């Protein structure tokens, strides 16, 4: 499903039918009720937008305030003068550059490998025939109801046995394959025509080659969606990294941040700068690639 550019645009739905359509004769003869309705609609929309963005904007604003200014009464909305001293402190005094690197490394590695692993499995479930395929897929689907926390205690013990506690691999490995990812790919890969695959087989292409040069190019949009989704989820993940990482040098940003707030809770501006540093990278990824992300969320849900 294409969003916003679909053939039913501009938007159609219940709310749109609240007001009778005006006659198309002249723009000046718009009924008053419609003008009022439109005004209320836009006011609500703008109010919603302000509420949605206010915490984020205040975080950015407070991170630029001189020390102490975010804890005054009445509260300040904008800094009296813009200062970057807190960001400087993050990279000099608090070593947050290290955690930024850790987060970027872990999220990138997980994203890259999981794309390959999930797309292979999703393609196999969608297009290749083998005994027990549907059964196996049902079994996997059942796993979606299992909360990950149920696995965490034994997983920790397993990781300890493997010597992966307090290492990057301890966070990376459990994220490499995801049932949800396989689902998403399978759904999309089903639309690849069988004839295309068979034609390649007749030409003597190996299965691996078919996957590389027919399947992968055919599922690029969903790969993009899955890549963004995985990157954001891994970057934002908190509980498992908190459990696996005990040594500061491997901390990811969310874990470091939760630790930091214990010591520096009074330094509002410093904490806001750390929060900006933690969340800005994913916000930028989202803003630049939102088309893929939003389409993926909407497409995956409706058919699923």
């Amino acid at each position, binding site marked *: 499903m294409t969003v916003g550019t679909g053939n039913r645009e501009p938007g159609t739905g*219940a709310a749109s039918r609240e007001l009778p359509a005006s006659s198309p004769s002249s723009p000046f003869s718009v009924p008053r009720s419609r003008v009022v309705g439109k005004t209320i609609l836009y006011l609500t929309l703008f109010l919603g937008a302000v509420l949605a963005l206010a915490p984020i904007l205040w975080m950015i604003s407070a991170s630029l305030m001189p020390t102490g200014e975010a804890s005054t009464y009445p509260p300040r909305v904008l800094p009296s003068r813009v200062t970057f001293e807190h960001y400087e402190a993050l990279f000099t005094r608090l070593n947050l550059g290290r955690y930024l690197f850790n987060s970027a490394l872990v999220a990138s590695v997980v994203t890259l490998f999981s794309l390959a692993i999930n797309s292979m499995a999703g393609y196999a479930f969608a297009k290749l025939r083998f005994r027990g395929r549907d059964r196996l897929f049902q079994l996997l689907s059942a796993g979606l109801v299992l909360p990950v926390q149920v696995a965490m205690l034994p997983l920790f013990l397993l990781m300890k046995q493997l010597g992966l506690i307090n290492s990057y691999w301890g966070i990376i490995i459990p994220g490499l394959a995801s049932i949800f990812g396989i689902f998403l790919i399978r759904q999309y890969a089903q639309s690849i025509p069988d004839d295309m695959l068979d034609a390649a087989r007749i030409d003597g292409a190996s299965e691996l080659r078919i996957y590389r040069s027919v399947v992968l190019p055919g599922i690029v949009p969903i790969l993009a969606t899955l890549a963004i989704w995985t990157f954001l989820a891994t970057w934002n993940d908190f509980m498992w990294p908190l459990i696996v990482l005990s040594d500061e040098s491997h901390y990811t940003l969310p874990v470091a941040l939760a630790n930091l707030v214990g010591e520096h809770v009074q330094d509002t501006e410093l904490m806001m700068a750390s929060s900006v540093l933690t969340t800005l990278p994913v916000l930028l990824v989202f803003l630049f690639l939102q088309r893929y992300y939003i389409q993926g969320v909407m497409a995956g849900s409706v058919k699923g």
Partner: protein
Amino acid sequence: MRFPSEASGAAWFFLAPALLLIGVFFFLPVAASLLLSVTDFDIYAVASSENTRFVGLENYARLLRTPLFWSSLQNTFYFALVGGPLTIAVSLGAALLLDAKLVRWKSFFRTIYFTPFVTTLVAVAIVWRYLYHTRYGLLNYGLEALGVPPVDWLGDPRWAMPSIILMAVWKNFGYNMLIFIAGLQSIPDELYDAANVDGAGPVRQFFNVTLPMLRPTLLFVGVITMIGYFQLFAEPYVMTQGGPLRSTTSVVLLMYEEGFRWWRMGFAAAIAFVLFLVILGFTLVQFRIQRER
């Protein structure tokens, strides 16, 4: 399929990495969790697994006698049963607004509404801690302008959970909103045209056309929201540490404390398993309700 044997071998080759990883690092631990919950696995067993005994259902029996477990269950239900429907209602409201024919710049607003969802939970939980500050917080300042006396949001046991719910609604409504928008767009125009001909007003159209047609979407949104909300952890961990007076200690937070702070892993595994049963029960109930209608 023309090449069954060849394709079959290839299929297992493509599946192997994913199945191996999910099997070893997810399904196996889940099964082991059940075993763990009938042992007295504790800090001594972490050192050497020989110090583990089979204790039957003792962990579960102890769980039922632990007041903190019951209050954590109650807090989790509070969060899920109030926060979940509230989030869904706000999502649906936002989706209806954005789907209105009159609205322009749809994708602009959609992006803004979705933005809180992609932020890092730990980071925004900290931001909200300051917004909720009794003296310097923007929220109380705004309320003061309306003549409302200051609220001790995170310090008052009665307000701590509502505060966490409010933040969760803000953070999560955008995701469900997208799914609702997709659901709304898939409702055929003809249904509304027919309702118009019948003289149905906007309210009746909403209840007689929109809601019934959205039922599969509602089920999906309901199930994933509830599953997610029963796993409440990071918000209380960062904002309240489960307090004040344990009023925001969730089941997962309790499991984390028992398992990874006190290393009572057998006991914690029993907590995790109860959580699983609760989530499973709720998912089944939601499917049942949808089918009956």
